[in-house]
C-alpha cells in the first residue's frame, strides 16, 4: 500500500518535471501563450506587411485597393485596410482609452467605461466619432476625444477594419430642385427613376399650401408647382420602395 503511494507521488513529480522542461509556450497555461504570441500580433499589424494582407479576399478590397493605389491617405494609416478575418487580432495599443494621459470629465469617463465594459474592453475611432456627435459634451471633452482620435490615427489604429464604403446607386434622380423658386411663379422639377423596374413616381411637398401637379411619362415625372409663400419645403418623391427627399427654397425676390 505504502509503495503504491510512493509510486503515485513519484509519477506526479515526473509529469511536473517534464512540463517544466518543455519551457514557456508549450504548456496549457494561458499566461505563457499570451506572452509568446503578443509580439507576433504586433508584427502582423504594425507596418508594411499589412499591405499584402490587404490584397487578400476580404470583402470590399476592390474599393480599398483603388484607394490605396491612388495614394490618398494610405500612408497615413498603414493598418487601415485590414481583412475581415483579422478583425479580432489587435495590437497592444488596444487598451482602455483611460489608461494613459489626463482623463476627461467624470461624465465622459463614465460613458467610456460603460462603452468599454459593454464591448471588447477598448473602443476605436468610430465609437469616438460617435461620442463626439453627442451634443451635450463640453469643449474640453470634445478636445480630449479629438486628441484620442488623432492618436489612434497616428498609430494606424483607427478602427477601420471594415471595408471602405462604396458609392451608392441613386434610384431616383431629381433635377431643377436646387435653384431657388419664386412665389407665384410656376417651377418645373423633373424626377427620373432608374435601375430595376419601379412604379410610377409619386411626389408631394410637405408644408405647402398647394400641392404640385405631378404627371408621369415613361420613367420621367414632371412636378409642376407654384409656391405661394416663402420658405424651405421638403419635396418627397417615392418610386416603389425607393424614396428621395429634397429641400426646395422659395423666396419672394425675383
Amino acid at each position: 500500500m505504502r509503495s503504491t503511494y510512493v509510486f503515485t507521488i513519484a509519477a506526479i513529480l515526473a509529469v511536473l518535471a517534464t512540463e517544466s522542461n518543455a519551457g514557456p509556450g508549450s504548456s496549457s497555461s494561458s499566461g505563457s501563450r499570451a506572452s509568446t504570441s503578443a509580439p507576433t500580433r504586433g508584427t502582423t499589424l504594425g507596418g508594411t506587411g499589412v499591405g499584402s494582407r490587404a490584397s487578400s479576399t476580404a470583402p470590399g478590397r476592390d474599393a480599398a485597393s483603388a484607394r490605396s493605389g491612388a495614394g490618398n491617405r494610405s500612408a497615413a494609416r498603414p493598418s487601415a485596410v485590414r481583412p475581415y478575418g483579422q478583425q479580432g487580432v489587435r495590437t497592444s495599443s488596444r487598451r482602455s482609452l483611460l489608461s494613459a494621459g489626463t482623463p476627461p470629465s467624470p461624465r465622459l469617463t463614465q460613458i467610456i467605461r460603460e462603452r468599454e465594459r459593454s464591448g471588447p474592453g477598448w473602443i476605436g475611432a468610430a465609437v469616438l466619432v460617435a461620442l463626439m456627435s453627442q451634443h451635450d459634451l463640453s469643449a474640453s471633452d470634445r478636445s480630449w476625444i479629438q486628441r484620442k482620435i488623432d492618436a489612434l490615427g497616428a498609430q494606424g489604429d483607427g478602427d477601420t477594419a471594415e471595408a471602405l464604403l462604396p458609392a451608392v446607386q441613386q434610384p431616383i434622380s431629381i433635377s431643377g430642385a436646387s435653384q431657388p423658386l419664386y412665389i407665384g411663379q410656376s417651377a418645373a422639377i423633373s424626377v427620373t427613376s432608374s435601375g430595376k423596374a419601379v412604379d410610377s413616381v409619386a411626389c408631394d411637398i410637405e408644408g405647402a399650401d398647394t400641392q404640385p401637379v405631378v404627371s408621369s411619362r415613361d420613367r420621367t415625372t414632371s412636378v409642376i408647382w407654384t409656391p405661394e409663400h416663402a420658405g424651405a419645403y421638403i419635396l418627397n418623391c417615392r418610386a416603389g420602395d425607393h424614396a428621395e427627399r429634397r429641400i426646395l427654397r422659395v423666396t419672394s425676390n425675383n
Partner: protein
Amino acid sequence: MEAKKIALALAASIALIGCEPAEQAKKENMLSSELATAAKQKDPLQAFQTVQAVKSKLCMSGNCNDNPMWVKAGEDEVKYLTAAIKQGNSKAFAALYVPAHGNSAPSIEQVRSQPGTLSSFLAHADRLAGTTPDEGLLLLYAGMMVMEGKHAVKDTTRAANFLARAWAAGNPNAANIASRLYIKNNDYRNAYLWSLRCTDKCERDGQAVLDTLQQRLSPEAIKQAERAAQDTSIIELAIGG
C-alpha cells in the same frame, strides 16, 4: 461674547434672506404692481415676460419661493407661457427649447414638462416657413429633439428634414448636427456629406470627425458625397436604395 455671537448670526441670517423687512415689503409692492400690469396685457408672452423680468430683478437672493406672492408670480408665469404656446408663439417655444433664450426657471421647466408641449412645438416647427434665423434656430432644436428621442419619438427622417430646413433657413450649425444624426445611425456617407457642409460659421465637432468619416469611404463614395454636398437641395443619399 454670547450677545456678539447672536448678533453675528442675526446679521448673517438677514444677509442670507437677502433683505430686511422694509426692503421685503418694497419688493412685494413692486411685484404686486407688475403682476397687475401683466394681468392687463393682452399678449400672454408679453405678460410672461413682464412677470419674468420683475422676478429676475427682485428675486436675486434665491429665497423668493417661500413667499406666497412669489409663488403666485411663478403660477402666473406658467399660465401666461402656456397660453402663449397655445397661440403658437415662436418666441414662447424659443423660451422653452432654445438654450440661448430659455432658462431653467421652475416655471419654464413646468411648462416644458406638461403633456403635449413638445408635440405642440414639433407641430409648430412643421408649420414654420424657415425664412428667418430665428425660425432656423427653432427648426434646429426641433430636429435635435426628434434626433435624440429622449422626450419625443425618435425619427431620423423627421429629424433630417428639420435640420435640412434649419440649414436652408441659414442656420450653419444645422449641418454639423445633421452630420451627428447620421453618425448616430452609422450612415457615414451622409454624415460625411453634411460634415462637408459645415463651413464658415458652422462649429464642426472637429477636423478629426471629418477625417475619420472620410477614411471609412471609398474614393467613389467620397466623390459622390462631395458632389451631393454641392447640390443644396439634397438632404441625403439613398442608402441601400
